[in-house]
């Protein structure tokens, strides 16, 4: 049964991708890209990667679609017919594909428990985590602690993107992140559509609640700061789409976003610095408490909070920057 589902999902992925590239209607392409992400997320779920599936769904199908739509509103809805080059790209692509296929000969089979990936580092994570960190979700343990430095880097990638988008699209007035939409002209695109408004408003509290659950349940089940940040941001963006950015900004004002962006990035880094001050290495949470396991758990909760804050703040700032550009 699973195999049939997997084959179906993979085939749909290819069909969707072809359709995305072929259509000249950019709006359709963006919508199809959202579907592509959902299919990809489902496929990740079939492959036992629950955390990744959740992230791909929230980020790929949710946030990325909104950002693309925001950009389309500011640029163009259709692609021109001319200007594409065909033959050279085809040749390059075929050479690349042939190289990749060459690598597949004798690669380990899917699901083979004896494959090298399952031999070396991974079993250590699975067997030692209960003793060293004692949280059920090993993905969170690796993300937050063993490879916490990567995750710090990842927060700063998001932070950099936020800074860069505000630099490019911001208002250019001192102390202001993005131009505020004038109250009268607020872009409440769906204000006059009763049904989406009612349904949306009913959904938003649940989305935010689910986001918080994902944030604080990340040690036990799939979830964590990134997923939670993306989900909460998606909830607020939905609110902004239904009620207009002005009201979304009233609910979560610019100053709050700033605090979230700076606070989230700083919280993560400072947890690491505190570990150094307490005699450990950077991000060595064991020293945070007399009991090293408790210290690890405390550290992971703190940095996940930092991640959640920073991601929510940055994604919302980026959204508002695009939206404000449209009304300015």
């Amino acid at each position, binding site marked *: 049964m699973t195999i049939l589902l997997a084959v179906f999902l993979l085939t749909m992925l290819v069909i969707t991708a072809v359709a995305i590239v072929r259509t000249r209607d950019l709006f359709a392409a963006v919508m199809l890209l959202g579907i592509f992400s959902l299919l990809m997320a489902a496929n990740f779920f079939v492959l036992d990667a629950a955390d990744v599936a959740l992230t791909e769904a929230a980020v790929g199908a949710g946030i990325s679609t909104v950002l693309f739509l925001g950009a389309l509103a500011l640029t163009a809805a259709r692609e021109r017919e001319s200007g594409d080059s065909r033959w050279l790209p085809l040749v390059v692509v075929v050479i690349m594909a042939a190289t990749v296929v060459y690598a597949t000969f004798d*690669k380990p089979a899917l699901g083979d428990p004896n494959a*090298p*990936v399952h031999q070396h*580092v991974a079993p250590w*994570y699975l067997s030692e985590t209960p003793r060293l960190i004692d949280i059920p979700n090993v993905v969170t343990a690796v993300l937050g602690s063993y490879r*916490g430095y990567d995750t710090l880097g990842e927060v700063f990638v998001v932070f950099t993107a936020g800074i860069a988008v505000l630099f490019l699209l911001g208002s250019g007035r001192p102390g202001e992140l993005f131009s505020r939409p004038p109250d009268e002209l607020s872009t409440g695109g769906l204000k006059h559509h009763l049904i989406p408004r009612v349904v949306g408003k009913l959904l938003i509290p649940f989305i935010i609640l689910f986001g918080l659950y994902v944030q604080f349940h990340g040690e036990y089940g799939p979830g964590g700061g990134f997923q939670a940040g993306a989900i909460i941001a998606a909830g607020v963006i939905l609110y902004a789409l239904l009620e207009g950015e002005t009201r979304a900004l009233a609910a979560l004002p610019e100053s709050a976003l700033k605090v979230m962006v700076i606070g989230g990035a*700083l919280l993560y880094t400072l947890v690491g610095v505190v570990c150094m001050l307490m005699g450990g290495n950077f991000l060595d949470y064991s020293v945070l408490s007399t009991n090293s396991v408790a210290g690890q758990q405390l550290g992971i909760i703190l940095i996940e909070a930092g991640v959640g804050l920073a991601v929510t703040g940055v994604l919302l700032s980026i959204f508002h920057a695009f939206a404000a550009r449209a009304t300015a």
Partner: protein
Amino acid sequence: MTLTAQLPALQVVLPMLTAPLVAFLRLPQLSWLATTVASATAFGIAVLLTQAVLGTGTLDYAMGGWPAPYGIALAIDEFGALLLLIVTGASTIALLAGKASLDQQIESARQPLFYAGWLLALAGLSGIVMTGDAFNIFVFMEISSLAAYMLVAGGPDRRALTAVFKYLIMGTVGATFYLIGIGLVYMMTGTLNLADMEARIAEVADLKPILVAAGFITIGLALKAAVFPLHAWLPNAYTFAPHAVTVFLAACSTKVSLYVLLRFDFFVFQGNLERHDVQFAGFLLPLALLAILVGSLAAVFERNLKRLLAYSSIAQIGYILLGASCVSLLGLTAGIVHMFNHALAKGALFLAVACIGVRLSRLWVDDLAGLARQMPWTLAAFVAGGLSLIGIPGTAGFISKWYLISAALEQGLTGVLTIVVIVVSSLLAVVYIWRIVEVAYFGSRDAQSPPVSEAPLSLLLPTWFIVIANVYFGLVPALPVDLASAAARSLLGHLL
């Protein structure tokens, strides 16, 4: 834990911690000051780390206290120390000198965000240099790349935007190729730690995925490093970036990618893939020679001052690769020492360009006519930087050419060809530098154009500091040469 033991972490954490604090300051002056202080402190840390590496050898640091390969380990050897000096030094000098120029080119309200981006670029580049983990390299590469896109996009001309879009596309494709490569290596070895990878590839029976991975990683990093013919993003990105950004990025960003390329290739692949040294040389040597010739020729015919220097950078990347593709002690030393010396020479040249850019809005070669009378110190610095670029004895550039030619002499017949190319391209460098000198010193200034004064002292002093460094390291090259030859030995150590 002593402070010294924590220095490797601080090198990255300090600029990272400063960036969010600077980003939303309301005072642009203060954000510049904080950024410059952080960058200068980072340079201080790099100096201390270099001392430590020269004293005790490679420094290891286990992030989170987890031992490699389970956690992420930093590993700083002589090669890394040299790169850290280049990165933090370039950033500090560019900030010190660039203030006046940046005030002209970036609106003051956007400056705090801009400086935050600068710090992130610095943190990203230092992070790449220090880490010993293949995936961690990817993460920090993306921090530095995103920050670099933003810095370049700050340029005043609209062509900065199209240039940066191309840069973003090619950079992301490069990073994704790299990701495919490490995915394949990980698939066959189960580890992400570079040192561990080397040990475990030796046990892999089938090497096809490793071979393909080597290809993807090399091409991905070559894209990031603007190796000919994958350099298309570089000329316009350097040309239309704010002048201070050009100083910073031209001195170090492509070199950091080359550093990763060399480390990956020599540490992970050379010892394990049969005849890889021959394939490596056979693949890169022609590209290096072409890069040198095409880059220099393009510079000769280019009329835009900054793009001319950018094409010359493509040729210089060729020199670095040329040294590396000799796969010998002298060759690698030459390539690595040239990373340092080219950063000095190009740094001086782009700083002089920044000086001119403060006074002139158009920077075509013709616009410089007669400028030497009005900006004598700036043009003199330009000439000195040019001499170092050409490789005149007594300048830093000479040291690298000397080592390159010595390395080529070991190579027999191909060596002769290599030397011919080096000589031809040095002559081409004379031509394109001379064109500028001729116009600036012997041209006459348009009567209608308003008079220009010498560049402000805040810019001239750092410029001349680098000019003097060019001469100093031309006469006393011990530090870079020692670091480079130790780096070359450790790279080759994996072959013996």
